[in-house]
């Protein structure tokens, strides 16, 4: 351990000595600079390491001048300041490296001196325990930043610097006044001494409160809180990003620590109020104002300011929020993780912004694909900033939400809304960046600092996850599983040198996990609802991953890793034992699938992400409502111990409804299904949407019985399901893209499953579970076939196809069986699901829902026929005459699935025997139906013999065939164009192929219903919010006088709310 004061002294001596070394040449100066920074970093690291390993138990107290604290100045280094010091020096070193690699404008030695003194100032600021000394160090920091901010010497940076000088001077005037008045009040300048002189009753006197307000207000200005942060945004926009990276990544955090520490020493009683008002408003306002940003640096600036607001909020709660035990600990870790996350990812983002150099967001188009490393760094930072698991930002947010007391639920809600807004603009940016565009990508400078930063960030993320699972005492199994997921997908990425290797690895990993699950009962103890879904996920995944190989050539190298990640996180969802682990894996699934979809349609992926975020954070808010008392993490079973408001259930259910694509939360589905990579869509439709079903079952079984109005909620859900089933089927009819038809069909089918769930009877669950598996089979089949067809024909536009039966007979056979299953026509497997569902609905007497559900299935025939006809029947185009049958893996998967539909159709027990066990594990005694004989299934209303139907259908088909041949017809095959068409033989296939807008007549009948009301409503909301934000962000006029005026207005506002002595 090094005496902290030595750090300051050595840095000072080095800074002074540069004045001499500059005559010896730049190299010497740089040498001195780097030696000093390295020394400082090592020194602080040794202190921090001491704290971390508990080698240093008490905070370090350093007397200066040999006098005991109230007389002399002293340094006080505790755990937090040591850690923060490490961060500051790390970021500082990285920024210096970055700046040097970009080239510092002359005179370079002076700039290095400024940098050194900036780091020195912030270190002193967080180490000192004397109010006036604090002021001095604040001034050192500020003046160094003034100079550095102006370092570009263009009009932007000079303007920013001048604004900073003026506002900073006002701020330091208040700090100075506050410090001196505190001396006058308490007779001392030492923080601890003053704290000993103060008790909270003195705040009623009026003197102390005004003094404290003045002092803390000075610091608040530096913390960039809402009405007075225009200058800060201008710095983020205008100044040199290297400098901004230090400011945002290190210095501001120093101010933050100082603010909290001062408030703590002053025993300031209104910290919570201040924190909520300013922290929350800063957070929300900046997250929304960032929407309309065109300048990438200012966008990052808004994000930084927002994060700072969140930090202030968290800090206020930590110190003054009456938190106890776990909550306090959680909040502390939330703060630490927020700080670390923001420091490392935001500084990386600023570095990258500087390296590329373009300001306008449009100019960033296609950056991701042009330079892979750059893209990786950018993506990681953005993901962590936006709070995507398993990165650090996610754990910070989770800790924060868990720690907030329940009576402040509105804060949870607002913070989550802000988080959604954050995702919205960050990933709008990401959307633009990840778009494909040709061109040369060049940047000036070194990428090493960003690499270092991201490396540290990744390490910290792992640490954050570790800490989260240890601290919350969640089942460690889940934590280990999370590690397993991450490692295995990274392994797929690293070891997969070619797509083939990646494919084999993915297959192997999924297969291995499946083998493990079957062999090892620790993950899945007995067959229950969870193992039902584990098997579902793994079986689906292995089939779909098998089918992807032929398609994978055009996918990027992250396709298979992300695929594995998504699959495994779905397994994680299925095995999770409490709501929080469920949420964690849920978010993992959402984000990884977002990245996968983003390989295809960018805008679609963005909408998917935003909707997922709405769902996911809704779920988190619901979980928050569930948790009470000391037990902060509600497990599934413990949630029954108390009554909670209906909102908890509704909010949690939102997440599942989004994934199920239930109207009106379905707007992501069409494009996300339609434009995601073809290899991924089967998984998205077949398995991923079923996770919503799983969550729905959990909610309905474990949670809903304890909520008020649970019957109303269930009935409402059933209505949502029914209307989704109907309207999505209607919309599917008029799509002209094969995957979009199937997309609407998917969510329509999942609507049926939702009805089954909402019934909450054992027959309902039977129907839901059966249909879940069955939908996986046939929709997987259809999407795999569609993928193959798109692969062969190069188009997904239905009117372009036609007549492909002649080229792809096997695919047609499988597709036909899939369609028959989808339409629910006996004897294939689709009918059983319909029969079970209708029986369940009849049993419950939900007549209207039954009517709508049945009617929706009639409507479904229309798109079923449309798919078959436009793809396979009609006239084959000339350009497809040489098209081959689909690649072998695809055909294998198709035929296996087709075989399954037939087998299950004749013998539904193949699925029902599993679903029965699953239903029994939910506490039901019977599946709701009975076997009268081996194959005859009876419900209260009706009966049905699948085996007979199958045999009957096949048997009479064969008889008919025999009869047909018996008639001795001689069959002559004729050419494709040899048709009796208006007395003429047509000369080209295109002219007689009927493939476009098949249901024009139907459209005229249902025009009102298929108008995109919901989508337009979303658009309208989004646009009006945008317009509102665009108008209100003019608040930041750019006028220095106005900025200063807002400072004064804010001060009077704070005085007004906290002190009633004058007005």
């Amino acid at each position: 351990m090094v005496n902290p004061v030595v750090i300051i002294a050595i840095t000072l001596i080095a800074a002074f000595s540069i004045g001499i070394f500059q005559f010896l040449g730049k190299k010497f100066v740089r040498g001195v600079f780097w030696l000093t920074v390295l020394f400082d970093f090592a020194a602080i690291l040794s202190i921090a390491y001491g704290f971390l390993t508990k080698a240093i138990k008490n905070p370090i107290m350093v007397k200066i001048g040999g006098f005991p604290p109230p007389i002399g100045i002293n340094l006080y280094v505790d755990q937090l300041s040591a850690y923060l010091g490490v961060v500051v020096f790390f970021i500082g070193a990285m920024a210096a490296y970055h700046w040097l690699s970009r080239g510092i404008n002359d005179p370079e030695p002076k700039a290095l001196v400024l940098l050194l003194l900036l780091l020195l100032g912030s270190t002193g600021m967080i180490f000192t325990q004397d109010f006036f000394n604090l002021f001095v160090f604040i001034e050192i920091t500020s003046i160094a930043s003034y100079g550095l901010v102006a370092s570009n010497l263009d009009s932007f940076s000079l303007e920013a610097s001048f604004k900073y000088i003026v506002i900073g001077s006002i701020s330091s005037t208040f700090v100075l006044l506050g410090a001196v008045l505190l001396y006058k009040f308490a007779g001392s300048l030492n923080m601890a001494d003053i704290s000993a002189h103060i008790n909270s009753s003195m705040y009623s006197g009026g003197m102390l409160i005004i003094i404290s307000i003045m002092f803390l207000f000075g610091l608040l200005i530096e913390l960039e809180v809402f009405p007075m942060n225009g200058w800060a945004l201008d710095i983020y926009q205008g100044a040199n990003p290297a400098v901004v990276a230090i400011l945002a990544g290190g210095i501001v955090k120093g101010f933050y620590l100082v603010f909290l520490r001062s408030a703590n020493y002053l025993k300031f009683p209104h910290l919570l109020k201040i924190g909520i008002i300013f922290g929350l408003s800063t957070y929300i306002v900046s997250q929304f104002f960032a929407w309309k940003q065109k300048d990438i640096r200012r966008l990052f600036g808004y994000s930084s300011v927002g994060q700072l607001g969140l930090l202030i909020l968290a800090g206020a709660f930590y110190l003054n929020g009456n938190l106890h035990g776990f909550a306090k600990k959680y909040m502390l870790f939330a703060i630490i993780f927020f700080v670390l996350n923001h420091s490392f990812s935001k500084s990386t983002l600023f570095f990258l912004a500087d390296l590329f150099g373009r300001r306008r967001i449009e100019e960033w188009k296609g950056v991701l694909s042009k330079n892979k490393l750059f893209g990786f760094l950018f993506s990681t930072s953005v993901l962590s900033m936006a709070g995507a698991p398993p990165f650090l930002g996610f754990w910070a947010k989770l800790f924060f939400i868990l720690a907030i007391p329940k009576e402040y639920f509105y804060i949870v809600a607002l913070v989550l809304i802000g988080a959604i807004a954050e995702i919205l603009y960050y990933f709008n940016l990401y959307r633009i960046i990840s778009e494909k565009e040709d061109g040369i990508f060049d940047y000036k400078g070194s990428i090493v600092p960003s690499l270092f930063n991201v490396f540290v960030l990744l390490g910290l993320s792992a640490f954050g996850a570790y800490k989260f699972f240890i601290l919350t005492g969640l089942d460690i199994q889940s934590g280990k599983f999370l590690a397993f997921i991450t490692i295995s997908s990274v392994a797929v990425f690293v070891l997969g040198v070619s797509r083939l290797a990646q494919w084999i690895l993915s297959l192997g990993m999924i297969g291995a996990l499946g083998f493990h699950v079957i062999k090892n009962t620790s993950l899945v103890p007995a067959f229950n609802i969870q193992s039902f879904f584990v098997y579902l996920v793994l079986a689906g995944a292995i089939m779909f991953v098998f089918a992807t190989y032929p398609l994978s050539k055009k996918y990027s190298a992250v396709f298979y890793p992300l695929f594995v990640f998504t699959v495994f996180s779905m397994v994680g969802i299925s095995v999770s034992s409490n709501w929080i682990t469920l949420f964690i894996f849920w978010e993992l699934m959402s984000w990884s699938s977002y990245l996968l979809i983003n390989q295809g349609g960018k805008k679609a992926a963005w909408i998917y992400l935003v909707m997922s975020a709405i769902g996911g954070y809704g779920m988190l808010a619901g979980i928050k409502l569930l948790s009470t008392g000391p037990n902060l993490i509600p497990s599934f079973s413990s949630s029954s111990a108390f009554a909670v408001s209906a909102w908890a259930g509704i909010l949690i259910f939102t997440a599942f409804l989004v994934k199920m694509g239930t109207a009106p939360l379905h707007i992501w589905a069409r494009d996300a299904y339609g434009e995601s990579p073809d290899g991924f869509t089967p998984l998205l439709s077949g398995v991923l949407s079923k996770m919503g079903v799983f969550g729905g079952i959990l909610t309905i079984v474990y949670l809903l019985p304890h909520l008020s109005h649970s019957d109303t909620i269930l009935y409402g859900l059933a209505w949502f399901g029914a209307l989704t089933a109907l309207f999505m089927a209607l919309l599917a009819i008029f799509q002209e893209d094969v995957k979009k038809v199937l997309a609407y069909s998917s969510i329509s089918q999942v609507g049926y499953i939702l009805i089954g769930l909402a019934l909450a009877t054992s027959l309902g669950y039977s129907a839901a579970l059966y249909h879940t598996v069955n939908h996986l089979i046939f929709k997987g089949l259809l999407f795999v076939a569609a993928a193959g067809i798109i692969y062969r024909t190069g188009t997904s536009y239905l009117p372009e196809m036609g007549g492909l039966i002649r080229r792809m007979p096997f695919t047609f056979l499988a597709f036909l069986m899939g369609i028959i299953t989808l339409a629910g026509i006996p004897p294939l497997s689709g009918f059983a699901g319909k029969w079970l569902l209708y029986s369940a609905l009849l049993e419950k007497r939900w007549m209207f829902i039954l009517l709508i559900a049945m009617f929706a299935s009639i409507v479904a025939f229309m798109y079923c026929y449309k798919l078959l006809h436009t793809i396979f029947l009609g006239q084959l185009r000339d350009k497809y005459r040489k098209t081959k049958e689909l690649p072998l893996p695809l055909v294998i998967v198709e035929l296996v699935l087709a075989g399954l539909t037939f087998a299950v159709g004749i013998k539904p027990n193949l699925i029902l025997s599993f679903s029965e066990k699953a239903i029994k594990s939910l506490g039901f005694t019977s599946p709701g139906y009975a076997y009268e004989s081996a194959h005859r299934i009876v419900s209260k209303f009706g009966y049905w013999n699948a085996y007979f139907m199958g045999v009957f259908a096949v048997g009479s088909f064969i008889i008919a065939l025999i009869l047909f041949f018996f008639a001795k017809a001689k069959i002559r095959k004729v050419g494709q164009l040899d048709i009796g068409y208006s007395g003429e033989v047509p000369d080209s296939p295109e002219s007689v192929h009927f493939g476009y807008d098949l249901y024009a007549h139907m459209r005229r009948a249902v025009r009102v219903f298929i108008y995109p009301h919901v989508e337009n409503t979303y658009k309208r909301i989004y646009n009006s919010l945008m317009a509102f934000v665009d108008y209100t962000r003019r608040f930041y006029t750019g006028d220095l006088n106005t900025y200063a005026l807002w400072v004064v207005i804010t001060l009077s506002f704070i005085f007004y709310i906290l002190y009633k002595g004058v007005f």
Partner: protein
Amino acid sequence: MWYKILYAFLVTVGGLAYGLLLGGISRKITARIHGRRGPTVFQNFIDLIKLLRKKTAISHGTMFFLAPMFRLLGGVGVLLLVPIVYGSSILSNFSFGGDLIVVLYFMVFGCLGMALGAADSGHPHSALAPTRGLAQMAGYELPFLISVIGLAIAHKTVSISGLVAAQQGGIFHWNLFQYPFLSIAGLIAMLGMYMAYPFSVVMAPQEIPVGPPTEYSSTFLSFMFSGRSIFGVGKYVLFMDLFLGGATNLVEAFVKTFALFLIIVFVTNVFPRYRTEQAVKFFWTYPVVIGLIDFIRIFIK
């Protein structure tokens, strides 16, 4: 069991004959209304035999080839899944195989097969007809489902035999009188189901030469022809079971189905034709409103 198969075969043959006869009668009545002599009532038999005797068939592909089988299978299936005579273990055919829901979905089987086969020919009109048919189906199924669901809930069963059993005990136990509005909705839906005027846009003999069968000839056509006839009979029986109290013997069954047949014939000859969307809109308004009266009555009971 085996004797059931034999009986089933007999029922199929009988159904075919009855269906062909009804077709002939319909043509005759229409001709008389038009003031023509018209073909003999046995014309359909003659046609069938003629078609069966033709030796060469033209095929456009696999689906084209299989479609007639599908069609025939669909027709036979529906006929055999519906109990013709209440209480008769023989003439209830294969109704143990499934309840009303099964029948409803099996009804689509044949239509789907025909539509696919026709479309495989590459003739644009033969695809046009199924799309119209499906659209119209979405139209008439709504009132039909209203009446089916209403009856099922009211009688607490979806087994067709169960529904018939519930109507036993005199004419006023028929659903036609117990739930008149449901029955009216169902019968209007039946008009659509038979694709007769005013809902005949599906076949549209004038514009698109008789729809899907255009490209078919000889044996293919004979299969489709017989499938269609059997299917028609099956549906008459179904409607009889649903609304007219079923039948306790074959004569009653003949009478009741013939009555239903007459309704259709007369309506057909009186009204002009709707366009597709007009038909759909019609089905979604009047019969639905009528059906809902009873539907809600059952719902709130």
